[in-house]
């Protein structure tokens, strides 16, 4: 399964342009995933993925703070900004200490492209449609990132401290996933 096919179905129905671009992304992801299989994930790649994944969620959170009028959604967005900044800071502190310079790989590129796409969509939405798209994407995004950390990054990590960092950030992602799933039931 490609990692980042995480557009809520409602959007696929409602937005033809988005359907096309999502489909294009889906194909792109499938290819990226095939490349990913063959690629060796280095600690430098892991550093770039962790930094990228946190930044993406902080960025989406900032858009949600501006666009949403729902208290549950705004509180969640604020949490994403605070928590992912904390994770980002500790990740940067560790890779700096280890002397690892982040190096992008195809997964980082896929994450970035997918995020640009999602943010463009968010900017065009408001009210409940915005909240549903933002929260729906957060659910899928956290599920995807948990999967990547567990199945790809932790097994690949060479440095034990980096591996420990990855293990220690999983509960944060799981708590966030449970949180946005709760909100999803209420909006």
């Amino acid at each position: 399964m490609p990692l980042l096919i995480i557009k809520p179905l409602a959007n696929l129905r409602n937005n033809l342009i988005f359907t096309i671009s999502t489909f294009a992304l889906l194909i792109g992801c499938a290819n990226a995933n095939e490349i990913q299989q063959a690629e060796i994930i280095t600690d430098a790649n892991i550093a770039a993925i962790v930094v990228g994944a946190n930044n993406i969620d902080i960025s989406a959170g900032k858009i949600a703070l501006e666009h949403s009028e729902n208290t549950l959604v705004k509180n969640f967005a604020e949490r994403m900004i605070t928590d992912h900044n904390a994770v980002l800071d500790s990740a940067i502190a560790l890779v700096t200490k280890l002397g690892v310079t982040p190096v992008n790989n195809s997964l980082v590129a896929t994450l970035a492209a997918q995020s640009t796409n999602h943010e463009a969509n968010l900017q065009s939405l408001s009210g409940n449609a915005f909240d549903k798209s933002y929260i729906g994407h957060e659910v899928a995004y956290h599920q995807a990132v948990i999967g990547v950390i567990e199945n790809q990054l932790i097994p690949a990590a060479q440095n034990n401290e980096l591996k420990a960092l990855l293990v220690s950030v999983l509960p944060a992602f799981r708590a966030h996933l449970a949180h946005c799933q709760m909100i999803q039931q209420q909006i």
Partner: protein
Amino acid sequence: MSFVNEHHAIIKTINFKILFWMVSGLLYLIVQNVESAENSFKLTQHNVEISGFAFVPKKLEVKPGDTITWVNKDIVPHNIVESIDQSVISPDLATGETYTFVVKKPMVYHCGLHPSMKGKLSLTLVP
């Protein structure tokens, strides 16, 4: 005659022995009861660690008047909210911060920032 006296003395000794054991047994029971009553009223200080987005231990048996101290060992802030009436127990606790609370009643609680984090204080019955 001397045989009768001797016999009497033996009976007296036995009676004193029985009395001695009865009294000391009674004293022992009284002391035990007082001690256990004291123990059940002895207040306890409990520590709950907040780490890995969880309350550790998640469930605690407490007595009214016991104190709970939460310490946040995570890199993100957490807080304590009563789950039934949603009353705020603690402010946001930054990394390393603690909050101490005196238990008055059993309580289910969660983190107001991360609602999946749950904890429980149940009351121990006095024995």
